[in-house]
């Protein structure tokens, strides 16, 4: 990766990203090199094709949805800031962050934001609810083609029934959070970005 003048990361940018996402300097640099290696078009932004070029992502059942999560509403390109912003959700929660609670805006990698990120992957139509159909779609993606619709339907129904508390036959964000309260989300949704 030679240095492309237009896409070199300036120090001020690094600082801004650091403030926004909480990544360390070395982590940002390392992720930047990854960003540029993915960026085949060398224009400083990633398109959907760039992501799809990653082989493992192609066989991931949730591959498309994950890719979509990187792109803000309606856009087709994501720059490094946006890339980092999305990845910031997966930063491990550190102890010193847990203490400075309500001072500023909630950090991107808080438990609530992590869960929100996951919730948005389910909720495609962004109505703040996971409906039966959306759940069915996700189940279908995860389970493969051998299972019949009725079977999946029953699982989906059971799932909604377990989680649903206000009786609207859909899972709202609050219910989603409640269902996952026993799961160690801080550990499950964190990637150890090595220094």
């Amino acid at each position, binding site marked *: 990766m030679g240095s492309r003048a237009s896409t070199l990361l300036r120090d001020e940018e690094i600082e801004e990203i650091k403030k926004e996402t909480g990544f360390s300097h070395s982590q940002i640099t390392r992720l930047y090199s990854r960003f540029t290696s993915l960026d085949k078009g060398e224009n400083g932004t990633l398109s959907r094709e760039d992501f799809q070029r990653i082989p*493992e992502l192609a066989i991931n*059942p949730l591959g498309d949805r994950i890719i979509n999560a990187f792109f803000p509403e309606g856009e087709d390109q994501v720059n490094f800031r946006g890339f980092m912003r999305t990845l910031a959700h997966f930063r491990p929660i550190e102890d010193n962050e847990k203490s400075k609670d309500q001072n500023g805006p909630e950090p991107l990698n808080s438990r609530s934001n992590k869960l929100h990120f996951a919730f948005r992957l389910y909720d495609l139509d962004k109505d703040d609810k996971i409906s039966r159909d959306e759940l069915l779609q996700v189940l279908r993606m995860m389970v493969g083609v051998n299972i019949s619709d009725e079977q999946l339907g029953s699982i989906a129904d059971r799932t909604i029934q377990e989680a649903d508390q206000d009786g609207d036959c859909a899972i709202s964000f609050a219910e989603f959070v409640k269902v996952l309260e*026993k799961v160690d989300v801080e550990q499950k949704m964190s990637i150890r970005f090595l220094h």
Partner: protein
Amino acid sequence: MACLSSAHLSADPHLASLLPLSHSEGCLHGLQANAPRVSETTREQRWGEPGGITAAPPATAQEVHPLSKQHHNHSAEGHPKPRKAFPVLGIDYSHVRIPFEISLWILLACLMKMGFHVMSSVSKVVPESCLLIVVGLLVGGLIKAVGEKPPILKSDIFFLFLLPPIILDAGYFLPLRQFTENLGTILIFAVVGTLWNAFFLGGLMYAVCQIGGSGLNHIGLLANLLFGSIISAVDPVAVLAVFEEIHINELLHILVFGESLLNDAVTVVLYHLFEEFANFEQVTIIDIILGFLSFFVVSLGGVFVGVIYGLIAAFTSRFTSNIRVIEPLFVFLYSYMAYLSAELFHLSGIMALIASGVVMRPYVEANISHKSHTTIKYFLKMWSSVSETLIFIFLGVSTVAGQHYWNWTFVISTLLFCLIARVLGVLVLTWFINKFRIVKLTPKDQFIIAYGGLRGAIAFSLCYLLDYEHFNMRDMFLTAIITVIFFTVFVQGMTIRPLVDLLAVKKKQETKRSINEEIHTQFLDHLLTGIEDICGHYGHHHWKDKLNRFNKKYVKKCLIAGERSKEPQLIAFYHKMEMKQAIELVESGGLGKIPSTISAVSIQNISPKTLPVDRIVPTLSKDREEEIRKILRINLQKTRQRLRSYNRHTLVADPYEEAWNQMVLRRQKMRQADRQNAYLTVPAHKIDSPTMSRARIGSDPLAYEPKPDSENLPIITIDPASPQSPESVDLPNEVPKGCGGLPPSPEEDEEGLVMRPKEPSSPGTDDVFTPGTSDSPSSQRMLRCLSDPGPRQEPEEGEPFIPKGQ
């Protein structure tokens, strides 16, 4: 005369042998002279017998007498043995001594366990292991008081018989997810922690020995290091026993417990190393390197052996569909063989056992029947429970029985340094580990980990194995070890529970995993794998995903029978959950708790072919009913002769299945009652009789049967090992079969999950099913007749199963 006497002698060779004197006199002549006297005396002897034969004076007559009578007398050299009466009652203790004593001990252990639960007030304060040791002490004291020598816990028995069940139980039910997530931490604690403990303790004890006075000076460095390595290992039995009762959160439990399991490799290597070299004062660098190498061989070799046996067991279980009753035995035997094979090569048996349990479990569970699964679970729990109890009791007994050599300095310093070593080790290691963990270990966690480092019977047995002539301080070691064990089990074991409460350590959450959690966890797994791929970061998720893919693509196909190999994990989980819930429902006896969605949709099968959701139950016309009754009446005659054949190899339907089926019927009845108008001729109460409803359905051309080629998993399946029960239902399937229906194809794939009567013998008990009807035996026969007339009913297809309504 001569010929007579010789004839005599020849006829009575035994007589001759009786009187060696006469023989030794040598010449026949002398004998001949004696012979008549001999015959006289024998005749007299014989007269002495009660009811003896009267010897006729002529010698020839004597010849005729059966020799056997004379044999009787021969035992007593010349003394008459009174003929005993045939013993009606006799005692022969030595014959059964060993099994008898073993059984007595096991019985004692079980009674103790029972007793503790009766005295619940005591067991709330004192952990069971302490009570058991006390019992052992008492029993040992009793035996000693009586004058007998109380048995010591022999190392062979411990390592070969008492330890494996506990380890297998732990390994088979190891919570794999947490274990692998924390594997790094566990390994560091197990390997580095144990090494640190061993060397620290050994070194310090050597120093103490040097300073400690005359009694201790002769103990060399290596002997001390050996002692250190024996005592430094955290004991899985003790940890299990204590932690089981305090219900601590899963992370801490798996950390301490995992450490206790994995440190076996280290202990084995250190033990053998120091035992070999303890008598040489010099340890060369080569030895150290070899020791290091041997650590890898021991641990990885043990795991390798375990994996091999696990795969073989999984493969075997693929073919066990016809001999369901011995399925659990395969699991036990292969695991035990893994343990023994590893021990054979001085590899780590514990790691082999764990590896085999972990490897075989997912495949075996997919292949075996539900009943076998339950059997395995309960047998493992039973054996491990009894083993644990026995171990603790024997610890107590051995304390009384063993020879002790109490040396204040040695013992107290051992105790002290053990504790210090443990605390220091945990602190330092946690500081190091926390740099790499996502979820750090808090000081509270560290305290519990340090405090949970209990020592137990493994240390005792290892010490006992030491050769007396090379290690004459063995008694002192033993005493010290027992003191440490007692201290950790009693003091630490008793106080850990209030401490856990005091420090408000997170406890284990008792609730079961819900389907939501399962789905979302898998979802998050996929999500994280994707993100890791985007970052180019090959972390935990990436490799787990790769392993899962490999597993699904290649391994599952080989090791899992039939269609279940394609079953996604989610579906398997869902089915298990449904099954559990159904069983609970039956046990609670109620219907109302089933959420409506389950009943509505759980009968759907997985086949992509569309099925009629609504089961069509035609209303019976009057004539049809009469027809049915006629058929029943006629066929009743035929089946009365059929006896229930007893078959040792198949299981009889059990009451829970009956209750389940009855519940199913009741539910279906209710629904039918809603939907149907009253039958014309049949009075209302008769509609509800199970017999009639079966009759109704039996005559139904849409008889229900397990759909043959669905690759499925009926949501609730009744175990195929009870083939004779016609009431066993294959609930989810409602494929119309029969006159115009789909040809039932052989269901080999489904063997694991589907009922098939194997013999046309009459079905299982029916009492639960038809309460109140007077003709319960005939009702089951009626069902058989119902199954008979069907056009395509081949015997192996089965009788019309009672469908579960919708």
